[in-house]
């Protein structure tokens, strides 16, 4: 890792919460407009965060707080690694650990609603993890490297040869951002059968930690989407923002569905699309490998 990469990684750690929080604010605003409301100001997520942070501590046990911290810190590690140009496979392995920490936090409390949420969180991991890892392999086939720094140097936009993988990543994006129809582990608004799923036992400062982790995660996933058009970078950023906007639309026109449906979409269509894309690369786009 060069000094520049180190500095970019550290800068990303500092800036990501602001970008993530801002994007969440835009999300709420746009969603409100789609629903015919005016919506809160774009700064609202930061106000919410500060208010949550100022609340007195109230939690079911110490372990849940420890895991919330671990969730945040490990997510920060992935953000640092991505912006410092590290190995994509390792980044997603660490991200899986982070996601598991959220489930651990819910499991560590003997709470029925948190447990249902944690189980469903695992199903979400089961759904998006293969798509992400297989897409990394597809990216490798085009660029010959697993390093983000190498992918950035690749001259050709990846989207042109990996269009199907990109569509699959959009599905994974929806699951990872917990947008409808994939918000099965924790519904966006308290629903009776789930309450708040994995977040049920979090409140105040601990909920703020998790919200912060989500901002980091949002930046991470959108940065991964941007890799599909890494040069020029502004095209990648536009691509990521476009994908994010698409998620708003899908979120607002669909309802939460069953996990079996989610799994069949992500394994059948998602993994299937990436696989198809890989086979296309193998036999159509290049003849290098026999």
């Amino acid at each position: 890792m060069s000094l520049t990469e180190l500095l970019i990684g550290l800068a990303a750690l500092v800036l990501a919460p602001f970008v993530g929080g801002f994007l969440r604010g835009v999300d709420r605003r746009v969603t409100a407009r789609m629903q015919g409301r005016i919506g809160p100001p774009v700064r609202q997520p930061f106000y919410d965060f500060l208010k949550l942070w100022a609340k007195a501590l109230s939690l079911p046990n110490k372990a849940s707080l420890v895991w919330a911290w671990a969730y945040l810190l490990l997510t920060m590690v992935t953000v640092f690694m991505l912006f410092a140009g590290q190995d994509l496979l390792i980044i997603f392995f660490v991200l899986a650990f982070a996601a598991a920490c959220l489930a651990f936090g819910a499991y560590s409390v003997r709470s029925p609603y948190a447990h249902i949420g944690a189980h469903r969180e695992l199903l979400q991991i089961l759904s998006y993890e293969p798509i992400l890892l297989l897409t990394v392999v597809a990216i490798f086939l085009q660029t010959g490297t697993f390093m983000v720094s190498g992918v950035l140097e690749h001259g050709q936009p990846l989207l042109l040869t990996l269009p199907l993988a990109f569509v699959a990543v959009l599905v994974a994006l929806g699951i990872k951002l917990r947008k409808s129809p994939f918000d099965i582990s924790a519904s966006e608004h308290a629903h009776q059968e789930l309450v708040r799923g994995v977040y049920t036992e979090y409140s105040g400062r601990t909920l703020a930690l998790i919200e912060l982790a989500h901002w980091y995660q949002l930046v991470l996933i959108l940065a991964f989407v941007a890799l599909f058009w890494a040069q020029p970078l502004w095209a990648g950023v536009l691509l990521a923002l476009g994908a994010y906007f698409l998620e708003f639309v899908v979120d607002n026109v669909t309802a939460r569905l069953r996990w079996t449906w989610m799994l069949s979409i992500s394994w059948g269509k998602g993994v299937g699309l990436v696989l198809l894309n890989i086979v296309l690369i193998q036999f159509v786009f290049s003849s290098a490998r026999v």
Partner: protein
Amino acid sequence: MLSGESLVAVLVLLPVATAAASLAIKDERWRWLLIILPSGVLIAASLLLLAQVLENGPLTFTPSGPWDSLILIVELVLLAYFVYVGVARRHLLVLGLGATQLVLFALFKFAWLPSGFKVQPAFHIDLLAVIMCLVISVIGSLIVMYALNYMQSHERHLKLGATRQHVFFFYLVGFLGAMNGVVFANSLLWFLLFWGLTTLCCYHLIRHDLTDEAEQSGLRALWMNLVGGLALVTGMSLAYQASGSLSLLDLTGFGTVAPVMLLPLALFCFAGFTKAAQVPFQGWLLGAMVAPTPVSALLHSSTMVKAGVYLVLRLAPGYEGTYLSAGIAVFGAFVFMITSVLAISQNVSKRVLAYSTISSLGLIICCAGINTGLAIAAAIALIIYHAVVKGVLFLAVGIMEQSIHSRDIEDMEGLVTRLPALAGMAIIGMVVMLFVPFGVLFAKWAGLQAAAAAPTVWFSLVVTFLVVGSAAGIVFWVRWIGRLMSHTAAGAGAPEAAPPEAEPRGSLSYLVVAVLLAGGVVLSVLAAPLVSYLISPAGAAMGYNPALDTAGWHLKTPFGFFTPWVLFVVIGAALLLPTLLVRVRTEDIRPVYLCGEHRASTAGGPVFTSLGDQAVPLVTGGFYWSRAFGERSLNVWVNGAGIALLAALFVGVIV
């Protein structure tokens, strides 16, 4: 310093001698002495052998003396014994397979091979064999020591009249000698005997408790492994016909003759699949859990199944770049995926562990099939790390089972408060199995990269199986850890924490678990030196280019890179700092949300007021989704696909 030959003699014969002695000794105290001393010697001998081979290169020799005749006699007796078991237990499959193997072997030996046929050298011990020997001798010995404690309480629990421990230790310790023989042998005739001996030990250890279920599981293990034995004998005959040689060195292209003999190699690999309990032979390993826990630990971590993957890996240079290689990669990856998915539906801890073992072995076999330097390195690394961690997990589950009298994951809820030390070790073990920066994940990382860069058109299928399988692995491990961790904070209606004496933390069995776990963590931190001093040279000795650059303690492939110790520091800080720094005052603790008013807690835990003022106790449970991932709905497809893949393998090889 002892010569290499005498070290080999110690490593193979000392366990056999110890086993024979333990059969005669029924006194507890003498048994402890008898088991612990040779175990120490065995560990020391394996380390000395490592030093020798590192210094002088592969050790190749044929012991002088009438060993060939002795081996032949024992082999015939062994096969005759299998036939006898078939007759005595009225098990047609065992009888048929045993008899066929006996006849085939006798025909081959007496009617086909010229009399006085000797395979030179009888032993060829390269670095891969030494690594296997270390796994067997160190982890195996630790498990044997653990068994000393375990079997005492096991028999106390069963209320046996006369102890049968001497028989148990006979097979348990003898197993280690047979396994060392398997990995050292170069002569296929010798190999076959040691292979058969592991089958024998496995059969007797599984049926040790002599219940109906144990007998049935033992017989199932026996016939499935006899299928493999039969494949081995057939493969031997074909190999001899094609090349006139019965040396593993020749078969893998390091000898004087180097023809491509795919069919015998395919048969040998098939034998490896049966021993490694790959689909559709997974039944015997799943059934093996009826045996006392040390047996499961031994079968799963350091012996038996590892002999299967060892054979596939040993032969890898022989089938490099062939159709067989690609077929093995696809088959291994498929098993890796499908057994991980099946494990999701299991709520019996030992079955989860069994499926995860089969899955890891599938990954090792897949890596052998990918057959590049990187893949072979991943396979060897996985053998080492999996052996250590699976040892920890089985031994920990064994103690749990003796403490809570259940092997159901549902009954393990909240063990962190009931058996904190043990549950802590089990949780760390599972994390080592599952997450970066630990060794198993490093092997998975290398394997995935190797698969993505694999020189076969089928690589896309292989990587797809691998990514789906690893996602499934996250589900069943995290859920299990979650069940262990689930607890109510002290002071908020929690059940009383267990008194310290509930956990015999100073006992030998606790010590063994702790030592193994520490070994797994240390080896993970030291992944880079482990690769540069052992794994890469072992691959190089098999003719593979070292694919991992470990300069500066990084792990660097041509396509990717990470630094284990940096990740250890960072991730360790992310987990430990909150644990140490977070302070929670008792008055901050609140009861959980229960959709109703809390009532005074009872001994069973919190109670809340539900609909119609009913008092409802708080209950939580795990989801196992057995309708979607269960054996009942999937097994037909799983076994069918496994058989189809194996058939495709053989058809392709023959055509």
